[in-house]
């Protein structure tokens, strides 16, 4: 399978076989991601990291991934000190980044920004989140986490909880989980329901998701509970946000009703949707999930640079 020079824009650009290959390749990266082993396979390569929107995990794990592979990183963590502030368009910024580096990772507040970047760059572009659009590396690390913990993805009852309307991770994840034939349950307030478009995509892939507003009902049968934050920044008006924030809370009392081997995941940051007391339980997987961002991004970077032997 050849990923050399390929842009990583949307999970929908990948076949199931390609995702399986990527997830398998990621396993090999774990000892390098946690510092047990060392490699310089990307020595002399420069990754340009363009973050037009705030990020902690995605940016740091991309940087860590590139460094762990022996490569170097240039870029910015917020656009206020760049020419964008002077009115430069994205296409021009990308042309520059392309000439200064061997690969580009981009996070941008507008949907489709990474796809546009890929049009203007010769170097491979990796999408680190475009507005409410795609976030393929998050999706891959979520799949990887489920695979590592549950040994398979197919047949697991995955409950997606919270902001299913604006949350970019849940849209790609619902699609990818459907490719792998997981059972899906969508739990959200009425006003933040999963868009019809996404539900139709799941159906086209042969999965019939169940939708409910009751977490209590859904938790009992869940194998994976994927919690998302109600994202204030995606709401068109504050009134709607105030109406739904705090709709659900995952705490120890709720988890008493869950299966013993339920895993709780969250793309983070969390605000109030998971009680800190859950951190101590065996259900809490979100920090391990965040770590998995490093081996997944190492696998992607390694592969887009040709997948040389470590």
């Amino acid at each position, binding site marked *: 399978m050849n990923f050399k020079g390929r842009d990583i824009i949307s999970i929908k650009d990948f076949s199931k076989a390609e995702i399986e290959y990527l997830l398998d390749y990621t396993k090999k990266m774990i000892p390098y991601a946690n510092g047990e082993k060392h490699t310089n396979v990307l020595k002399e390569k420069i990754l340009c990291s363009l973050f037009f929107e705030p990020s902690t995990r995605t940016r740091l794990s991309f940087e860590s991934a590139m460094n762990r592979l022996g490569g170097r990183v240039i870029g910015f963590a917020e656009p206020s000190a760049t020419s964008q502030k002077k009115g430069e368009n994205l296409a021009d910024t990308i042309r520059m980044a392309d000439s200064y580096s061997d690969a580009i990772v981009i996070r941008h507040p507008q949907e489709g920004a990474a796809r546009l970047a890929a*049009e203007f760059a010769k170097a491979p572009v990796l999408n680190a989140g475009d507005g409410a659009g795609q976030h393929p590396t998050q999706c891959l690390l979520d799949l990887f986490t489920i695979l590592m913990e549950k040994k398979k993805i197919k047949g697991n009852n995955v409950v997606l909880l919270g902001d299913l309307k604006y949350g970019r991770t849940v849209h790609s994840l619902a699609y990818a989980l459907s490719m792998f034939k997981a059972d899906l349950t969508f739990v959200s307030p009425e006003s933040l329901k999963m868009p019809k478009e996404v539900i139709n995509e799941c159906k086209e892939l042969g999965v019939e998701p169940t939708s409910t507003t009751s977490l209590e009902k859904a938790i009992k049968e869940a194998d994976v509970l994927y919690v998302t934050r109600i994202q204030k920044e995606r709401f068109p008006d504050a009134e709607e946000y105030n109406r739904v924030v705090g709709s659900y809370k995952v705490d120890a009392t709720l988890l008493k009703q869950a299966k013993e081997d339920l895993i709780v995941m969250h793309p983070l940051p969390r605000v109030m949707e998971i009680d800190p007391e859950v951190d101590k339980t065996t259900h809490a997987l979100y920090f391990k999930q965040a770590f998995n961002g490093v081996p997944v991004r190492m696998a992607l970077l390694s592969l887009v640079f040709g997948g040389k032997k470590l």
Partner: protein
Amino acid sequence: MKELKVTPIKDGTVIDHITPGRALKVLRILKIPESTSSVVSVAMNVSGKMGKKDIVKVENRELDPKELDKIALIAPKATINIIRDYEVIKKHKVVLPDEVIGIAKCSNPTCISNAREPVESRFHVIGKDPPRIKCYYCEREPEDITEGII
């Protein structure tokens, strides 16, 4: 051509069987009148064998039928008739291409294609009957295709 209520043309192009009410949008897609000085006549809600339809006639200009395929987005049943000396010498039923570029604006206000970037709008055609499109950039599917016509 005898069934038409409007006068036949001697030479030119007749776009027939346009979805009723969409003739003006078809003209907009074809950049008419900006792109031509020919006489253009439009008939709307004309009764035909298959119900109501719109018709556009462009005199003394033979439009490239293939180039007209893009109007299939809003008029999937349209036919293109090339007329010479009152006779139909070529008839073409429009076929929606796999991709439509520069004729419809993405309905997502935060799509990068709506920003000040040097790109044209671009959609993948994901369904032909009825026509369904998805933005190449933001991957959203507009609810009403006709609204986005530039």
